[in-house]
């Protein structure tokens, strides 16, 4: 087991985050990048926090998402950066977004339950798109006749929306008590 100084640790982590293809968690870092070094999780975390501070005023930020840490562009530049990319990112239909929102907020949920709330049939295409994008996954089957699949969101979904957990989703509009006014 080799030793590494804080002075070396920080730039090594920086390089690792930049070249890694997916976000790196502290656990990932310990098991791969620093497998031959004697370094505690706490020291890694402190080094990451120092890096985050260094990058605070830069064009890219070191951000914690669900699967770990990654460097991403600062949101302030998104509009101008869009000029770099010729192809527009796909716009998602309201049907897809509503379905995704239902899965995110009410997971695990069956397709039938989604249809109940939305009042219309959910097209297979939407479910397929969500599964293919790896935003949702089937986590099991409901023990009712027909054993319908139960859908839930994935870590990739959180990463895509730059969230580190479901708790960071915006709060739902409060559902008021039903006290009807006279017809």
């Amino acid at each position: 087991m080799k030793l590494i100084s804080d002075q070396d640790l920080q730039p090594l982590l920086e390089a690792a985050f930049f070249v890694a293809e997916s976000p790196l968690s502290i656990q990932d870092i310990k098991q791969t990048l620093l497998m031959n070094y004697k370094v505690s999780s706490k020291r890694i975390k402190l080094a990451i926090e120092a890096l985050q501070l260094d990058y605070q005023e830069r064009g890219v930020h070191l951000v914690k998402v669900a699967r770990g840490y990654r460097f991403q562009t600062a949101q302030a530049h998104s509009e101008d950066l869009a000029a770099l990319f010729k192809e527009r990112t796909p716009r998602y239909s309201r049907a897809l977004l509503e379905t995704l929102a239902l899965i995110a907020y009410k997971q695990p949920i069956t397709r039938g339950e989604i249809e109940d709330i939305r009042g219309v049939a959910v097209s297979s295409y939407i479910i397929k798109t969500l599964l293919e994008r790896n935003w949702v996954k089937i986590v099991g089957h409901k023990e009712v006749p027909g054993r319908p699949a139960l859908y839930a969101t994935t870590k990739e979904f959180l990463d895509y929306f730059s969230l580190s957990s479901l708790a960071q989703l915006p709060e739902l509009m409060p559902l008021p008590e039903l006290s009807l006014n006279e017809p």
Partner: protein
Amino acid sequence: MVQQVLPLAMIHGQAVVEKPQDLFIPPDALEIILETFEGPLDLLLYLIRKQKFDILDLPIAPITEQYMEYVELMKEAKLELAAEYLVMAAILAEIKSRLLLPKQMVEEEDEDPRAELIRRLKEYEVIKHAAEQLDEMPRMERDIHLAQACLTDNFQPREIKAEVELSDLLAAMRDVMKRTRAFEHHHIYKEVLSTRERMTAILSKLKAVREQQPYLAFNSLFDYEEGRQGVIVTFLAILELIKESLIECIQTQASEQIQVRLKA
């Protein structure tokens, strides 16, 4: 004396002076709007919001009337009318008719016929709102991009050499052998060892020792180092020689060593 403006209507005790802004929508515009509805609940919500009604009020009569107008328009515009829209029309009609019943005829514990629909509308509105918020959230590819650096050109990935136990190697080899056996084909080779040649060899062997001992043990004719093939060739040669009456096999007692000698 200032003349007071006459209110158009009184709603919840408040005077409404001005006409609602969006009382009328030209039919052309409607067609465009119609396609964007995400279902009957969405359409109902739109109608309620458009009239600035409170969902909890849900004035069934005017809403039903407008809803039916929209459904008719959808039919005219030949939009694929989802069955759900017609189901909703039936629900509205049912609620409307139940509201028309005199109060005393309705059973006591019966809840407001609108309650279920209002609950569904509220629930849908919450999700509709959540979907809008989700759409506004910064997301990859649109608002944020992954920042990545390239590895240097001369980057060498580290090879991690696996440690292998000898027993693992043997087990692997065994598997390979098992598999090759399954894939082995039957080949027909030209006989490397000729039976004729072997017949000659046996005869000359017997001849060479005839002076000292007329018999040779059956076993001694075989050269085990030749392996299975050699043994078979020798055996065939012996059989051939017996058939041609050049040698004979003698056994003095059952299960004793077989002796071979030249005939005559």
